[in-house]
């Protein structure tokens, strides 16, 4: 028999699995991408898809509206703060003079090879 609880469990399981896959893919990207700036983009998957989908799955499992609303707030604050921290480290790297690899050949400014 298909109950509302079953539908809810399946939906939150799907969200947990997709969100978990996002976190893992982000981690794989951080290892595989060639330089600091490209790695930041991989970390962005973990920040957005990973975290928010797992939170959405948790909201579906929340025992009360109060807990669900608190989880919405956790998601909201992540949404507001993660770009600030990402920009802070990107800007710090840029300010001290780390230059990104550019173009399809991944060359740095000043590289002759």
């Amino acid at each position: 028999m298909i109950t509302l609880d079953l539908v809810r469990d399946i939906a939150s399981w799907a969200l947990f699995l997709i969100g978990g896959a996002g976190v893992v893919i982000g981690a794989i990207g951080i290892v595989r991408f060639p330089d600091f700036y490209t790695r930041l983009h991989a970390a962005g998957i973990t920040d957005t898809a990973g975290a928010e989908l797992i939170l959405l799955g948790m909201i579906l499992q929340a025992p009360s509206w109060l807990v669900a609303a608190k989880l919405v707030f956790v998601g909201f604050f992540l949404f507001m703060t993660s770009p600030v921290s990402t920009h802070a480290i990107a800007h710090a790297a840029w300010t001290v003079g780390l230059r990104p690899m550019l173009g399809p050949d991944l060359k740095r400014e000043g590289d002759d090879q």
Partner: protein
Amino acid sequence: MVRTIVLTLALTGLWLLLSGYYDKPLLLGFGAASVILCVYLAHRARMLDGEGVPSGLMPRVFFYWWWLMVEIGKANLTVARQAIAIEPALSPKLLKIVSPTRSNAGLATFANSITLTPGTVTVDLEPGYMLVHALTEDLADEAAINDMGRRVAALEKGGGA
């Protein structure tokens, strides 16, 4: 005055949400006192301006966030595909984006939206333009980023943020 009311309502809502007490007069009284103290301190620190309480963006910004979430979902798929591709076809690029926004709150919203979208990160803010690092040729889509900028600028219309 509008900003004071908006901040008071937001803090009251947050307090009620996080505490979960609705029927204990003593605790509600403490809550009210802490909200009033916070609003007073914010007022004294002159933080009740367009930057601290951007109430001018308020109703429209919720629709914008919804649109932004869809964009983030699409960009996530593109970056995830590169991360697990056998031969990632990366072609990082630096773009100079001119922001059409007028207020600081609008500029911050635009720059953060770019960073929040996977595949593009705002690296530097210079007077007149922003420096954006993009992961691939596809993601370095200046037209799409400028479209996002126009949407943020549209939020600012009316109230001066």
